[in-house]
């Protein structure tokens, strides 16, 4: 009996080796990545199926460090795919309808894998257009390859502004870039009379961009910047920063990096009785979990959001933001995050550009994207010459009585900003 057990590991090793050998030789020629093509609308009856097909490709994380947000991105793309093939009847190009075939692979959150999969999509699967991956870093890898092959890539999940500073002519981002995250909130508080700002941010790529933007906008709206502090990733205590800020007695506090930091800031502010007239926390407040964690102390906190279901945007395709919310909830059984909404919007924008161009030619679609000036359920879309969406302001929410409500910009607001927030001692 013991012999059998001793055998087991060898058998396992052999299995691995055999699996390796079973690969079509030569080894390097083996197919890359997760063969997880989302087939074109499964149930489409054969007789109705138009002969013409547009192939769209994307490498999006399904596993790895971006598994969660990547999953939302995938859901967003797939929701659009179902809609465009089943309900809308395919993309209109001239007089013809094209079905869409969406090929998605799992990039595992790794830039090497992303590069490999995007190369594969372009050179082997011969897709016509590309959609973006999740995260700024992976979008940087992917967009450089798209540019090399002169392929259009529309993305909705890379917010870093440096993406659009590389002179690419084929990259278009539908989301509001990181530098503008605090713009509408700072505008709103400055209108209420805020005069001074302090800023604290985590020292990683995305919060840095957000904080630099915050400084720029604060100056733009005539506010004085009293202090700028940074703190490391995964910080456990922010009370030293908050003590310093308390002595400066600013009107507005801007801070944040990750969800956990948001909790730390609120708790430290309360403990130290640091009561600025507004607290803008860049990541966290728009997430319903934030209210659950902090409770009543979350009230009056302001935060940016790419998209909320309560926003007043709408389009003729998905209807209002609320309609989109309902549709998403019905399909996936969970409410859409803004990552999901912006991914659907990304695909929709590509579709509308193809229809506007009336052609699948890269140059024609690029022109159509450059001239685009529309409003979708996700917000206005208008690209500047670098490919950033300058049409859409970042929304700002405030937590009022435990509810997340949009307070800025005016075009999307559903409630008035409460300013100043009452001091901790008077709550």
């Amino acid at each position, binding site marked *: 009996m013991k012999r059998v057990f001793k055998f087991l590991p060898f058998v396992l090793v052999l299995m691995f080796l055999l699996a390796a050998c079973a690969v079509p030789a030569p080894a390097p020629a083996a197919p890359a990545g997760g063969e997880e093509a989302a087939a074109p609308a499964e149930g489409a009856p054969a007789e109705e199926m138009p002969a013409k097909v547009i192939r769209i490709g994307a490498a999006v994380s399904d596993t790895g460090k971006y598994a969660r947000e990547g999953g939302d991105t995938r859901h967003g793309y797939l929701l659009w795919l179902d809609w465009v093939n089943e309900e809308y009847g395919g993309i209109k190009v001239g007089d013809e309808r094209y079905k869409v075939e969406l090929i998605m692979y799992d990039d595992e959150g790794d830039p090497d894998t992303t590069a490999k999969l995007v190369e594969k999509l372009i*050179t082997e699967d011969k897709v016509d257009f590309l959609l973006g991956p999740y995260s700024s870093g992976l979008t940087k890898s992917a967009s450089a390859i798209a540019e090399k092959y002169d392929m259009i890539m529309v993305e909705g999940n890379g917010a870093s502004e440096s993406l659009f500073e590389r002179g690419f002519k084929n990259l278009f981002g539908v989301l509001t870039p990181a530098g503008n995250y605090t713009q509408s909130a700072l505008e709103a508080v400055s209108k209420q009379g805020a005069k001074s700002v302090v800023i604290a941010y985590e020292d990683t790529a995305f919060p840095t961009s957000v904080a630099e933007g915050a400084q720029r906008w604060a100056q733009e709206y005539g506010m004085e910047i009293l202090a700028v502090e940074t703190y490391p990733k995964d910080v456990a205590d922010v009370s030293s920063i908050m003590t310093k800020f308390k002595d400066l007695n600013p009107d507005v506090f801007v801070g944040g990096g990750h969800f956990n930091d948001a909790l730390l800031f609120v708790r430290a502010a309360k403990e130290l009785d640091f009561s600025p007239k507004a607290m803008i926390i860049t990541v966290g407040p728009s997430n319903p979990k934030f209210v659950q964690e902090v409770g009543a102390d979350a009230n009056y906190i302001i935060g940016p959001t790419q998209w909320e279901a309560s926003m007043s945007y709408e389009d003729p395709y998905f209807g209002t933001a609320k309609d989109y919310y309902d549709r998403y909830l019905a399909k996936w059984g969970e409410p859409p995050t803004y990552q999901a909404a912006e991914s659907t919007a990304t695909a929709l924008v590509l579709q509308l550009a193809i229809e506007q161009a009336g052609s699948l030619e890269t140059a024609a679609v690029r022109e159509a994207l450059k001239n685009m000036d529309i409003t979708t359920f996700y917000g206005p879309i208008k690209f500047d010459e670098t490919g950033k969406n300058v049409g859409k302001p970042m929304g700002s929410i405030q937590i009022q009585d435990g509810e997340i409500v949009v307070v800025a910009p005016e075009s999307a607001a559903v409630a008035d900003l409460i300013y100043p927030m009452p001091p901790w001692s008077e709550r």
Partner: protein
Amino acid sequence: MRTRRLETIFSSRNTFIGWIILLILLALYPQVTELSGIRLLQLTQIFIFITLASNWNLIGGMTGYVDFGHAVFFGVGAFVMGILVTQVQNYIVFAPGLSFWQALPIAGLAAMLFALLIGLPTLRLKGPYFSIAMLGTFVAMREIVRVLKDFTGGGRGLDLPPVLNRERDYYFMLVWMGLVLIAIWWIHRSEFGQSLMAIREDEVGAEMRGINTTKHKIIAFMLAAFSTGIIGGFWAFQNTYIDPDVVFIEQRTVEMVMASMLGGLGTVWGPPLGALILYVLQDVVWSRVPEGHLVVLGVLLIIIVLFVPEGILGTFKNPSSTSLGRLLRGYREEQPRPETVATE
């Protein structure tokens, strides 16, 4: 009989000739058939993996200093490259940013110099202490790069000029891999290489026999770091952007160690073979089980360490050295070891 035949096939000279032929075929490959970008990129990634595993093998396999932070040299090379190409002009007036070819040797030399600085204290440590010190170096460098914002861009990283040329990359890595493999083959046969193996087997004994162990260890360490630094610089260009989190990842070291161990520690052709097998496994088998592929990686590592510690080539060379080899050769009865005797 069978072993003898295997031994002849895998003799150092035959394998060397085989590899040379393979290298020539690979050099001609893109010329003969039209290769798409994905094929070129995949082959380039395999070359990178093979070269990294061979570099690691020089210090980890031949010298016996298990370096759990070798990816630090990759990171140093990548960031030196990034700084030279995009940042230098901001600090030195009239100095234009360097080109890829100008910056590449400097990236390698910087990694080598860094290896000298780090190696002087850490190579005095033995066994797990050295491994831990290198792991610490690796983690510390990631944080240092984050802090030196003015040069490295901090957490935001650096964007390199997005000029991709898959064919150039392919040939560059092919040539570099060829050079490294030939160098390692030569080192393995040379007095220098034999001294390294003497250090691995018995450092005090080697010292007694007049080998300057400190010098040998540091040179091996620096050579490995140089090559890894070159690849880091190359990778920075190929990926078009770097930040501390994509450059300094533990997985890169783990993969180097795994490839070397799977193929055969301290052998010349083992790490390349291991790297090739691992790459194909990652590509094909693991993509079929996306949720569990790290589990597979871990289980594989445990199996290697427990049952095939000498790796594939080690097993071919000396079947009695591993459980798998003994099993295949039916050695169990012929060469009883204490624990097997007890069970029979």
